Every structure is written in C-alpha cells, then in structure tokens.
C-alpha cells in the first residue's frame, strides 16, 4: 500500500486512491477533426513508461480530486504530485527525464 501525497490533503494511504492512467493525454478539442490514427492514439496508445511516469490518480476516498503524479515505475517511489491543470514539474536530478 503506497503512501501518496495528495496535493490537497497531504500524505495519505493508497487505499483512498484510484489510479487513473497516464497523465497529460488531452481529449482532442474537436474529435470529429481527428484522423483515425490520431483518435486511436488518444483512446488507446499509452507510453507505458519503464521509469518516471506521469500519471493520474484520484483521491476518490478523500477530497475526490483527480491530480497528477510522477512515479518511478521501477521502484514505485513518487517524485512529485501536482494538481490537474498544472504543468509537469521539472525534476532536478540528472538523468531523470519525465
């Protein structure tokens, strides 16, 4: 059970959260204008990063907000969490690129 920093409520146990997939996958503003490949990309294609992954969580059994996180999928350690709509934090450590 992970410990997750909710940007609103602070450090909270994973039992209160729901994972919600890769972050920053914006729904096209005008889906009808997308090509089949663009639409497929939005619907299904994900980075599935081995390393630092930008992802969404929802503090569903807390403040109920969706927010974003950077997590290393090789260690499950979180590097940052930030509110939906905020841009991805730049990590300081060398060799780590989101």
């Amino acid at each position, binding site marked *: *059970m992970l410990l997750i920093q909710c940007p609103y409520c602070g450090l909270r146990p994973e039992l209160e959260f729901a994972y*919600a997939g890769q972050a920053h996958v914006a729904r096209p503003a005008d889906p*009808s204008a997308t090509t089949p490949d663009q*639409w497929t990309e939005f*619907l299904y294609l994900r980075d599935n990063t081995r390393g630092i992954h930008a992802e969404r969580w*929802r503090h569903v059994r807390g403040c109920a907000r*969706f927010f974003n996180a950077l997590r290393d999928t090789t260690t*499950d350690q979180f590097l940052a969490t930030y509110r939906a709509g905020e841009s991805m934090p730049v990590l300081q450590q060398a060799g780590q690129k989101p």
Partner: protein
Amino acid sequence: MSGRRIQQGGRVDRSRAIRFTFDGKGYSGFAGDTLASALLANGVQVFGRSFKYHRPRGVIAAGSEEPNALVTVMRDEARCTPNLRATQVELYDGLVARSQNRWPSLDFDVQAVNDLLSPLLPSAFYYKTFMWPRAAWHKLYEPVIRRAAGLGESPTLPDPDRYSQRFAHCDVLVVGAGPAGLAAALTASASGARVMLCDEQPEFGGSLLDEPAATIDGATTADWIRDSMATLRSRANVTLLTRTTAFGYFPHNLIGLNERITEHLPAPAADMPRERLWQVRAARVLIAAGSIERPLVFPGNDRPGVMLASAARTYLHRYGVAVGQNVVLVTGSDAAYAAALDLHAAGVRVALIADVRADATGAPLDLARQAGIEVVTGATVLGTRGRLGVREVTIGVLARGTVNDTRRVKCDALLLSGGYTPSVHLFSQSRGKLEFNEARQAFLPSVSAEPESSAGSCRGIDGYTQVLNDGARVGAASALAAGYSVAAPEYRVQALEFGMHGLPGVLPQASPLQPARAFVDFQNDVTSKDLALAMREGFESVEHIKRYTTTGMATDQGKTSNMNALAFVAGELGRTIPKVGLTTFRMPYTPVTFGIFAGYDRGDLFDPVRTTSMHDWAVQQGAVFEDVGQWKRARYFPRSGEDMHAAVDRECKAVRTGVGMFDASTLGTIEVVGPDAATFLSRLYVNGFSTLAVGRSRYGILLRDDGFIYDDGVIARIAGERFHVTTTTGGAARVFGMMEDYLQTEWPDLRCWLTSTTEQWAVIAVQGPRARDVLAPLVSDVDLSAAALPHLGVTQGRICGVPMRLFRMSFTGELGYEVNVPADYGLAVWEAIHAAGQPHGITPYGTETMHVLRAEKGYIIVGQETDGTVTPDDAGLGWAIAKSKPDFVGKRSLARETMHAPDRKQLVGLLTVDPKVVLEEGAQIVATPGQHAPMKMIGHVTSSYHSAVLGRSIALALLRGGRARIGETLYVPMPGGEIAVQVTATVFYDVEGARLHG
C-alpha cells in the same frame, strides 16, 4: 527413553509441569518449553520425515529457521494446524501434536523406500519420465506423486477462530528484540519518538536469553532484560509485541506483522482473536533481525541428533535441556566453541571438537583444550551412522586432497556450525541492495531503498558489546531521522563469546563419489549431488538451480541452506559467490496464516450488505433476494406454494392488468447542478439536454469514448440549473467517477457540480393501469392527470405529507410513476402506497418481473443486452442520438466505418416456434440446422422469459445483421436438439406504446 533435562538452569518454570502428547504418546514438560525442547527433554530425537526420501529427521534448530521438525497441532477437530515448527510451538497443558508425512508411523515409514530408490530419483527426475502413455501422467503417475508429496494435512472443517487486523503508525519500528533491537528501542524511545518493538519469540532478549553467564554493565543478562523491559513498558510512547513476526516489507515503509495471540494458551477466551495482522507505517524502520547459524554439508549430515551448535546452547540455557550426553562438535567458526564449553560445564561429555579449519587457533581452542576437550583442526566428516539417530561420526583430517587419521567417534548428538548468516530478508524485501562481504563471507545490507537501517548482527556486527552499541547508535539515528533527538548510551558486555565468522559450503571430501548423501536443503532433500547434477545439465543461473533442484523452496525458505547451496555452486562453477548471486528474498519471512489476511472479512462483513429503506418489509413478505453488486434486491415475492415462475407470472399480470409496486432505490442517482449543467450533460450523453424543459425527463445513453454503451438512465430537469440523473445500479459509482473525470480534467471551465444522491432517495415505482388511482389519494400539491403530468413528466410535491420528486416514467410499458422520497420516509410511504393500493390489488414485484416486463417492451438492460461491444445503433437505440450535436463522448468512435457494418450484431426479438419453449439466456443462434461444432454462430440470446401477458415465451437476442433478418427462421442448438425461432422486432407487447400514455 532417557531424560535429557539437566538438574537446574534454563528459563522454564520447573514448578509447572505440563502434559502433552506427541503421536498419541503422553509426555511431560515445563511451562516455558517449546514442543521441541520438551520432546528433546524426553529423549525424543525423531520429529518427522523428509519431503522426498522420507528420511527420519530430528530438530536441528531452536527457532523459526527449523527445516525438519514440522508437526500438526490439533486443538480440536476444527482447529488442526499443519506444518508448525516444533521449535516455535509453545507447550500448553493438553497440547496434542502429531508428526507428518509418514505412514504408518514415524519410526517405520513405508515410503522410506524412496530413500533406497534415491539413485533413481535425482533432482527433477520427474521431468524426464512419466510421459507414456499420454494420459498416464494425469491418471496414474500424478495422483501417486501428489499423495506422496505435501507435508501435513489441510484442515477440513471451517476454522472457528477469529482473526484481527490493525493499522498502526510509529516513528521507529524496531524489528527484533535481541541485544541490538532492545538497545535501539531503549534509545529511540528515550527521545520521545513513538517506538514499536516486535519479536517473533514469546520473550524479548533474543540471543541474550542464551547467555545467563554474561553481564551487561555489570548486571546479569536476565536482570538487564528485566530492567530494560520495565523501562520500555513504563514509556507511553512504546508498543511492545511479542510472538510477532515482521513478515513483509512493502513499499513506502509499510511493514506487515503477524502477531500470534492465543496459540500458546491452553483455553483461549472465545472472543480473543487467534492471530492479528498489523500493517505498520513507520517513519523509520530499524531492522535488528540477528543472524542464523549455518549447518555444514557432509555425507549423512541429516540424521536425527545432528543439530546447530547455537541450538544446543539455546536448549541448554533457555530450556535446561542437554541435547546429548556424548556430543561431537564439527565447526567452521569460533562461535560454536561456546556451545561445547557450556555443555561441558553442564556435565555433558564432549567427545571431540572437529574444527574444519586447518589454521584454527587461539582462545576458543585453548579454552576447549584446557577443559580437556580434544580438538582436531583441518578436519572433515566422512559420514555418520545411526538409523533413527546419530550414533557415530567418522572424522578425518584433510591434507593436500587426501584424508588421513580417519576415525570413528561415538556420539549421541552431533553439533554443527558453519558460521552465521545475517538475516537480511526484510532488508532485501525492501529492495535495498546487498553487498557481499569477503571477510564475513556474507551478504550485508549496502544501499537502502526505503527509510530504514539495520543494526547488530544482521548487518555483520560481531560481539555483544559492539552489537548493543550499534543498536543504540542506530536507534538514536533513527529517532533523529524521524525528528527526535537523543544521545546513544555505551554498553559494556562481558561474555564467553568468539567470532561468528565461518565458511559456507560443502566440506571437502577425499573422493567426489560418496555413497551417502550430503544434504544442503534438509526439508526438500536436496543434496550436493543434486546441485551438481543441475549444473551438469546446464543450469547455471542460481534461480535456475533453485527451481530445478527446489533448494531453498521449502517452508523454511532456505534460511539454513541458501548460503551453503550458493557457496557450493560458486565453487563448482569456479566463480565468486557475488558473481553467482542470490535468489530473490520473497515475502513472507516465515509462513503467515491466511486468516489474518481475511481478518474480519467473513459472513456479512465479507462485503457490505447494502439494503434499501424498504428491505425489512420485503424480508417480512418473504421475498427472495438476489445480489446485485453489494445490494440485496428483492427478486420476487412468492406466496405460499409458488415457485419463481408462478410468482413472476402473477406479478407480471398484476402490473399489466392492475398495479404493481417495485423498489427502485438501488438505481444510482446523481444531482447535477450549476449554470452549465445542461451543457455538461449534452457533452456527455448521446442525447441533447439543452432543449429539455423543466419538468421533463429523457432516456439517456452514456457511451465511453470508444463508442460502446456504458450506462443508461433517465435524466430529469428539476429546475433550470438542476438535473436529476439516474444510472444503473451497478453503474452508479463508475458513472459518477467518469463524470467527475470529464468535469475536473477535460472541461474544468464548466460551472456545474455533482452530488451523489443515490442514498438520499427511496424510490418506489408504481406501475400499471391503476397506478394513478393508487397514488391520487396520497399526494398533494401535484396534478396527476395525463395533461398535467404526461409520460416523462417530472414534478415535485408531497406524498403522505412527505416531500417528493415524482417522475412519470415506465420501465414496464404501463402507466407508471416513480415516487422519490427522502430515504428515511421510504418505508412509511411504501407502506402507505401498499395500503392505498389494496382495493386495486396492488402487488409488490421484484427484479425478475421487472426484467420480464421490460423485455416484453424491448427495453434493454445494460450488462445483459450489452457487453461492452454494443453501440446504440446495435441496440436499436440509434434514435436517441442527437444528430445535430458537434460532439459527445463516443461520437468520434461511432463514426468509424466498422461501427456501421451491416453484419454487426443487432438487437432483435426471437419467438420460438413452439411458444411453450423458453430459450436459455446465453444460448447461441445458427442460421442453418444440423451443424456440428465448430458451428457458424451468428448471435446469442440475451434475455428470455415466459411472458404471462402473451401466454408464450419471448426472447431478445444480439444477431449478426439482425434487423435485416426479421422474419427469418433460425435455430438455437441445445444439447437436447435444435430449437427453431423466428426473428422479430424487439417490442412484443403494445407495439404502438399507447399504454404508457394512459
């Protein structure tokens, strides 16, 4: 049998004799004994039979690392626990234990024939044979192997015991209450930090309990432990847990503890949980897990009576038991000399110390020789003898590859020590990096992955003074890291102790081919020859060798065997130990009872039982319920003598001809409020809502962006900026989540908000031609006339004086209303409607009747007519899509070509040619009769019922190109023959829909 209890000493309570039985024979021990110590005291040497060769085995350890002495403890018929280590089973009065994996008896086991066949049964022999004839594996060989395998027997009756769970949080969790752990806990707790200290043993002290003669700062160990415990107990910031194993290290410093609460009690109170799971979140974890002595590997090293030197010392000092009267010690470490010296001092004859190190020298040897014990250096063991216990050991001196001075030494116990292996299990589970320490010949913690530290001998610290001081220092550092400050005290220990260094591996032999076998993994019967065979067959990865030979995979998880196996493999491959590498340390450290994971999750607490306001009424009426998600829903209301079919027929008829009432409270309800609520719903649902007038409602279909139906419901405009949205019962939570997702992340600019109101409302559907007549006398401030409240109209008013949202809607095709009242009023209003409906023959009905009635009308149920691959058009609901909207969730996907293919599965009706035949839901449909598998299946039956009003069966089906097939005759193949069906439209009753406008 000779008693082995010495006259005095030990921490057992000699004033309290305890009776117990082992394999039906009565024995006596003392309070404070383990089953192992008590049996040893009674002269018992054979505890069990090994897994594969059924060789007689004795106890080799005194703690949780014991591989051999596994027993079943039977408290009563339902409380049988297999595979317990006798070294951990605390004696209580009346304890009944039984040996395992033997028949007919421990001393004479028929399957010991396997031992004679051992040349035929090397590691992994089963992969090479039992292949012919093909069916014989499953039918013949496997059952024999399965019966031979396994250890104890599974319990067969439901476990009546209770299991508990707790979450806990602390600043410093100290794992292990030996010298390092105690010092750490004392120091860290002095800082004010919240400290938890746990230890798997019934008593804190760890190895200090084996050191009665030692002193700490001048106090005896017994006094020091007592005073330390008193100090810890006096501190409110300290939690002490004995009999508690830290079994797992999980991400973000979560540690799983298994506390054994009643297992040692003769008659536990009924309410006491047997065991408890602690999930501890610690700011810092301090691992003081100690280290485990290794046996030595040589031919015949598995006979009963062969034992770790440290275990012999534990039995002596903690339990007052001498493990033999004439012992031989074979050692590769200095530490074990203490065992020989202590046994000697207790009056046991030490026939010989065979030190396998050619260059062994110094204080321990001098002391032994001064005591008159013969010490041979550069020794090796060539073999042992004794059928049910060691009687003789053959020792030689190895020099330049040859063995000289071979001699046989009589003994009744053979003590071994290959040095100590630090317990890095938890550290490794935390994903910390280990490093091989050449000097210690051991893997030690190196780089941490979690906020933790190791202290004491589990990180290679040797010597009590150093271990205590290390514990104190790391305890202070851990407290500091958690935000508390304290200085570490200095301890001084005086003890008879020697270095723990040793040498892992197999003792060198004169010839590689010895007839007897040298066991590496005792429980799984893996010998050095098995390891060699694996390497011969090309298995060089240590993980492969483990899996091929099963070394380290027994219930002790290789605590005493892994390093020996590794050293042997490294030697054979000519690589260094770190080059060969370790196998993964896996959770749990020692086996953990399933019950603590289940905890309170049993019976009704397994999962919340959700019921509506009217549930108790339905129970009183004798309703039969079904589980829908966590909800209990009344399925039908049988009257005496009725089966489901009869009850549903009656209920259906009542609704079609009179009036029925139905509890629809479990449907999800979401209140969508705000200036942009209509815009939001229009973007989400396929339908348009901007034009929906206040006081009107509309059937809504919700897709996912992949274009497939996700949910449906009715959406009513209560006020200009307020919508009342219903969902399916199962969809309530996920639809709410999906709405929040779009609102928070895709359209955060929309000013509208969601509130779940599923449980705010009790919902009573009143359906049937007499529905208006029933409700009319009960409502106020409402005009029920068709003109004022037409189909899909919505209004607010009062019923029985209670505020109400009244929906004119129908999932039955009849004149219908859904009365929504605040849930606490639901039962009273339900009862009032039921009473008011009596003159009209009002009939409560359940979900089954609801299903039949809606099927007669061709209304879909999401999850029954849909399966995640159905579009609105497939379901015949294309009409609901607002064509003019530029976008809604799923619209883009619906534009894909394949979504319009003419051969898509479409919803149709089916009528069996024989009207009495009711199709089975899920049955498949074929176009031409007489097919054999594989058939060309073109659809399946989604819903099928007997329709009372039509006097025949009806069915709905998803059928390829279905709408173009209306009128065709198709076939439903069943095991008993094909059923001919006609394809029809989906509406079977009141096709014009006149009735719902009544």
